[in-house]
């Protein structure tokens, strides 16, 4: 495309050629790599000043840097942008895709976490969700197959390495793009959906200033808990 870039050039023009290359490499790595990238690998992430430029580039397009495990970086939607888009009803995933994604998150993360097998607030998990666990009378086998295909292509789920009982799935690398606030919202939404009358659900509603019995404020259905899924 054109050599001048209307959005990014004002930010990049004062950098030396070398710094510009390093900032663009780091920007590309956090934006397009499937997995978080190691800080040590990229000067644009290692150097605090250059990293600030990467963050400014991301801010222009509604994104932000997300620190993973203290040593890696990726990018995700800035919380204010995600909130505005959600309020506007923006939702690129279909209801079926969200439902299937929620089932994988429930079986691979929420249940192991409630059993104390998974700790922390990450949505990464090695506990596979089997096709049997994804069966529900509300979604036909064909719809489920197509949804799994789309979710895999989007990096929201991935095949687990365990093929002993047929294909099974784990959360995809894109879930690591969730910011801390987005991870907490997703967790809250799953609790409100799975155990709406539990004391912890009550606490979530109290914290969010919601009336008892409300499933989640302006988000009207349980599957909307995955609005951050489009990462």
């Amino acid at each position, binding site marked *: *495309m054109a050599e001048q870039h209307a959005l990014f050039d004002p930010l990049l023009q004062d950098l030396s050629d070398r710094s510009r290359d390093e900032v663009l490499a780091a920007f590309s790595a956090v934006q397009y790599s499937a997995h978080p990238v190691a800080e040590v690998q990229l000067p644009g992430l290692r150097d605090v000043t250059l990293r600030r430029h990467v963050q400014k580039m991301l801010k222009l397009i509604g994104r932000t840097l997300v620190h993973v495990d203290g040593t890696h970086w990726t990018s995700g939607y800035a919380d204010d942008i995600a909130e505005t888009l959600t309020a506007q009803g923006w939702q690129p995933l279909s209801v079926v895709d969200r439902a299937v994604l929620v089932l994988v998150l429930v079986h691979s993360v929420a249940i192991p976490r409630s059993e104390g097998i998974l700790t922390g607030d990450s949505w990464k998990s090695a506990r596979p969700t089997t096709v049997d666990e994804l069966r529900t009378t509300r979604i036909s086998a064909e719809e489920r197959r197509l949804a799994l295909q789309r979710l895999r292509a989007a990096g929201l789920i991935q095949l687990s390495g365990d093929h002993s009982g047929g294909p099974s799935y784990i959360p995809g690398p894109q879930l690591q793009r969730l910011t801390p606030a987005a991870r907490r919202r997703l967790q809250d939404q799953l609790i409100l959906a799975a155990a709406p009358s539990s004391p912890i659900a009550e606490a979530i509603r109290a914290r969010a200033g919601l009336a008892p019995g409300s499933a989640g404020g302006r988000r009207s259905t349980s599957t909307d808990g995955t609005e951050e899924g489009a990462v």
Partner: protein
Amino acid sequence: MSPVENAAYTALWWAKVQSAGPLQVSPDTPPVAGLARAAEPDGASLWIVPTLPDGAGHAVLEELGAPPVAVEQPNETARVLAICVTCCWIERDGPAWPGVTGTLAQVKAVYAGMRGRPEQSSDLTLIIGSLRRLHATQWLLWDEKAGEVRLGPRVITWGPTQLAGLREICRILPDPPTAVLTPRSPETPADPLPADVSAAGGDDG
């Protein structure tokens, strides 16, 4: 718009095209910095597509050994994209967008020609799977019902270097047969026409 409002407007549109891919919008949508515009041939809508500065993008990932989210059947998918470029980009001195409409019959014929053998029924599964994948990511606009395909709005980001490479690929691939397009339904004409258009819709290929 104030600079702050303008920045928020830009960031929101960018967030939308990142989460949903290129978007088809009304032509009166104000321009957004860094988002290229690809007008539909009928002028009724346009696509907005993200662009990046030179030195940014997927090419960097290869050097870093940090792969993007994997495409399923990447080789077949790339082949089918190349075939569709051959079928739909016929004015090769100009840009690839919007190109012309190609057909599944053309894609199948070029695919078999590229393989150097007659068409086989198993080709269809691979071709349709690739067309669907490329449609989902807006590299192509695939109308499965009509069996017709166009290049997708993402192709407007192809620069001179990429077009030169594609020109060479088109030269190597077998020439597609002439496209025979499905007659358009007269139910929803773009402009109000006299009532006796039902007899129209003959061979427009």
